[in-house]
């Protein structure tokens, strides 16, 4: 992360320089400050494709700069940016038929064939249905609350809780050593 400005300028000051003057250096500072986290989150949400994650991050910044004027600074810049990134990621997954609108029902899902070996946590997360994966990453990895997740994904907090419940159950199934549950379609709790 860049330390070019000392003391570091506030996100808001950088955003204003970008907005008012088209200041490239201000943009680069904002970019370097927030992109590593955004990229990691998006990378998980899209299922581990760096190429897709890069496309999403680029589009996120383009949309963010377009919407910056309307940002009220009631949330942190990072949270706002994350919301835009999730929307872009969701759009990409939806175009590929990998995102279904979240409702309070579990998505059909089958634990991966493990052939006796254990899979690591990142791989297990990547194998989850996209909706489960997004909620699990936002809640259990990034630490967002269900209300925040609901706002970012356009769902009710209760739906987020329910999705998380199913996501965690699926994750445990994916990580467990092969058992009699192998190959069983995930059932509603």
């Amino acid at each position, binding site marked *: 992360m860049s330390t070019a400005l000392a003391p570091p300028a506030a996100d808001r000051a950088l955003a204003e320089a970008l907005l008012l003057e088209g200041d490239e250096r201000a943009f680069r500072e904002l970019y370097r400050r927030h992109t590593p986290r955004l990229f990691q989150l998006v990378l998980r949400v899209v299922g581990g494709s760096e190429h897709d994650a890069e496309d999403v991050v680029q589009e996120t910044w383009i949309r963010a700069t377009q919407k910056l004027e309307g940002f009220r600074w009631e949330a942190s810049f990072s949270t706002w940016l994350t919301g835009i990134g999730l929307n872009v990621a969701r759009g990409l997954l939806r175009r590929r038929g990998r995102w279904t609108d979240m409702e309070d029902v579990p998505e059909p899902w089958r634990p991966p064939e493990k052939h006796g070996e254990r899979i690591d*946590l990142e791989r297990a997360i990547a194998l989850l249905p996209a909706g489960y994966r997004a909620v699990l990453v936002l809640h259990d990895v990034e630490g967002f609350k269900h209300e925040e997740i609901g706002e970012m994904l356009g769902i009710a907090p209760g739906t987020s809780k329910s999705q998380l419940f199913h996501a965690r159950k699926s994750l445990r199934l994916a990580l467990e050593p092969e058992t009699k549950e192998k190959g069983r379609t995930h059932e509603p709790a």
Partner: protein
Amino acid sequence: MSLHDEMDGELTPELRAALAALPRETEPSRLLEERTVRALRENGTIQAPARARGFRFPASWMAGAAAAAIAIFMVGLNAGRTLGARETMANVAAVVEAKSTKQAAVAVQQTGSAYVSALSRFATLADSAGSSPAQTQQGREVAVQMLRAAAGELVRISPDDPLASGILAALDRAKTQGARAPADSAGKERTVWF
């Protein structure tokens, strides 16, 4: 017990710890930043910062640059002798003889270092009291032309490389502007210098 508490129960302590230990940040490719900046420049959201230091290359310099570059190649050997740059000429020979990408990459590194060293020496001399403005201008033109040629080759290697294509586009724009500028009578003499 709340619903949230029940859901917390779905995570074993080991799984909770493993999730907590996952990295929160990953640096994407440096090219992504350049790609994004380029897209934002193209849509007019940002403007490139003003060049605050280093050489400034007015568009008019570009008019004679191509001719100067050709002259360099024509009398390169002679110039090399004049400057005592035997090592550079050996590097040029190594480029021609390179039989692998590794050898070629080494040659690029060596000749690139020679280019930068020569430019540095030129900058020192150009700043000295006895320097000729015409010769300084001529040297700058040649430096830009070499830079453009290098960027052109980089674009050939990686057409999607935003850095190389950005440099090339900027130099091409400057060249176009230079071509629109009135002809400079000193420009024709520049080739003689080499």
